[in-house]
């Protein structure tokens, strides 16, 4: 019996045809999360279908703010109306996961079709906790299509891999000529302050990949497949003596004056072969790394959009208790003389 004729695969084929016909009307299924070779033996196809969800949405710019166009979301991911803090400023779109994080067998897809002229920041409401995965793995997939004259900043929020977690994050970004994007990942060692048993780099497997294409041409690629738990040597190789790492892809330059200080840390700003910028941050204080990476991302977004200052962070209209806000302790540390 061929694979295509098995009862289980027929609905998948039908679903794929539905997605092609109407990407905003079809269910998100296991087919949307092909495991990487490193996790092929942990394929969650046996996990309940309820573990799979996500969002497919059009983001459109109208009347000076971002709006949701055609939108489909599936539990546990929810989305609310974009928030515009200041007239003429960028909009903020929160992706909300209604569960405690990513559990064994979970798959979450975010597909955004960003129309011309959009200026927005898209993020999760908190850090992404990846729970232990005794049988399968958890997966996140981001697919962004960004039209000309748009500037989209997307930072999913810090990833915290718990002990024994297996996680695959795959991101594909397609830029039309003239489209701009800022993508940011932050990776933390684990539940370092978990009272019962503090965790530090004791995940089972992390696979993360990012591809950016401009006008169909591959302009940026990064991938790692880390096998844990790490011993001291492997930790030193990948993180040095840091407790947090962040990576930003910015489709444009970054001015040195836009880099905040990072006490007890290092920032590397490097121009890619295709004229974009990759920023890596490493630091001993995770809070400082999170704050610095968010500030660089949102300042770069403002520069790319031709806006003054930094998107959202210094606004009086937005409370300062978001994960990407600059905590008071960090503000005072950044103000200390050298």
């Amino acid at each position, binding site marked *: 019996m061929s694979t295509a004729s098995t009862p289980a695969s027929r609905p998948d084929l039908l679903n794929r045809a539905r997605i092609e016909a109407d990407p905003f009307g079809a269910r998100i299924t296991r087919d949307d999360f092909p495991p990487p070779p490193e996790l092929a033996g942990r394929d969650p196809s046996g996990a309940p279908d309820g573990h799979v969800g996500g969002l497919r949405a059009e983001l459109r710019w109208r009347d000076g703010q971002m709006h949701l166009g055609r939108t489909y979301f599936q539990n546990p991911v929810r989305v609310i109306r974009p928030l515009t803090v200041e007239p003429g400023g960028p909009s903020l779109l929160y992706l909300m996961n209604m569960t405690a994080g990513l559990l064994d067998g979970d798959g979450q897809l975010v597909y955004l079709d960003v129309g011309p002229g959009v200026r927005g920041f898209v993020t999760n409401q908190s850090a992404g906790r990846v729970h232990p995965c005794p049988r399968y793995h958890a997966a996140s997939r981001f697919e962004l299509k960004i039209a000309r004259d748009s500037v989209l900043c997307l930072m999913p929020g810090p990833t915290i891999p718990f002990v024994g977690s297996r996680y695959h994050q795959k991101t594909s970004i397609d830029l039309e000529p003239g489209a701009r994007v800022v993508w940011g990942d932050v990776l933390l060692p684990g539940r370092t302050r978990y009272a019962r048993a503090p965790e530090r780099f004791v995940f089972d497997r992390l696979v993360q990949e990012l591809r950016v294409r401009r006008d169909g041409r591959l302009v940026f690629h*990064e991938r790692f497949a880390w096998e844990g738990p790490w011993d001291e040597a*492997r930790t030193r190789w990948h993180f040095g003596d840091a407790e947090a790492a962040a990576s930003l892809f910015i489709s444009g330059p970054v001015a040195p004056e836009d880099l905040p200080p990072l006490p007890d840390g*290092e920032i*590397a700003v490097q121009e890619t*072969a295709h004229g974009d910028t990759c920023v890596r941050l*490493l630091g001993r204080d995770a809070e400082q790394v999170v704050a610095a990476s968010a500030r660089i991302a949102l300042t770069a977004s403002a520069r790319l959009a031709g806006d003054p200052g930094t998107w959202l962070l210094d606004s009086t209209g937005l409370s300062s208790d978001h994960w990407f806000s600059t905590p008071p302790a960090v503000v005072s540390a950044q103000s200390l003389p050298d």
Partner: protein
Amino acid sequence: MNTNGKPGPAPSPGRLLRLVQLCDSALPIGAYSHSWGLEAVVNRRRIRGPEDLEAWTGAWLSESVAPADGLIAAHSARLAHAGDWASLAEANDLLTANKVAPTLRKASLNPGEALLGLASGWHWSSRASAEIRASGGGPWHHSVLFGALADSAGADPSEALALFLQNAAVGLVASAVRAVPLGHTHGQQVLAWLQPLMLDLADRWAHAPLECFGGLSPAYEVLSYAQSQLYTRIFQS
């Protein structure tokens, strides 16, 4: 026999001579001017002797070289064997998009282009070199060229990868001999210590799918950047 103990290409003195020529550390491709970030490590006093060097080189080969340039070298040997020059150019583009640090990109492209220029004039590799030039790709990375030329020399993908890793280790150790500094005897001892690891890595990565390409290490990239910011430096990378 190839690295995994299975029958490989038939042994022949001509094949060995071609591979020895390809792997010669004295090839004038500019590799001697690169340290692949090691200069910054030495500057931070993290490598003081042969044991430190063996540990650092082993991590470099395992975590950064084998899953990236190493995998591409084996893949390129396979593509060259099949005469699939268009896919070889795509693999080269993938490397270009992946090499973030300008210094490491330069350390890959300059020797690659120089090797292509040299190989164009060698009787055993001129045909492959002409096909590569005609494909319209480039500038070419060293690992792509190394893999394709290793095929011309008669190596299979597993051997191409093992030799590429050896070639990379020789370059790094040679830079350590100058930067640490270390004696040549210690340098050769480190290379001997690393051989079992290189054979293991060749077995693991020679047949890995291209989908697995990538060996990002944030700390290594930050180090490569730090090397480019040193007040005085003797290496380009």
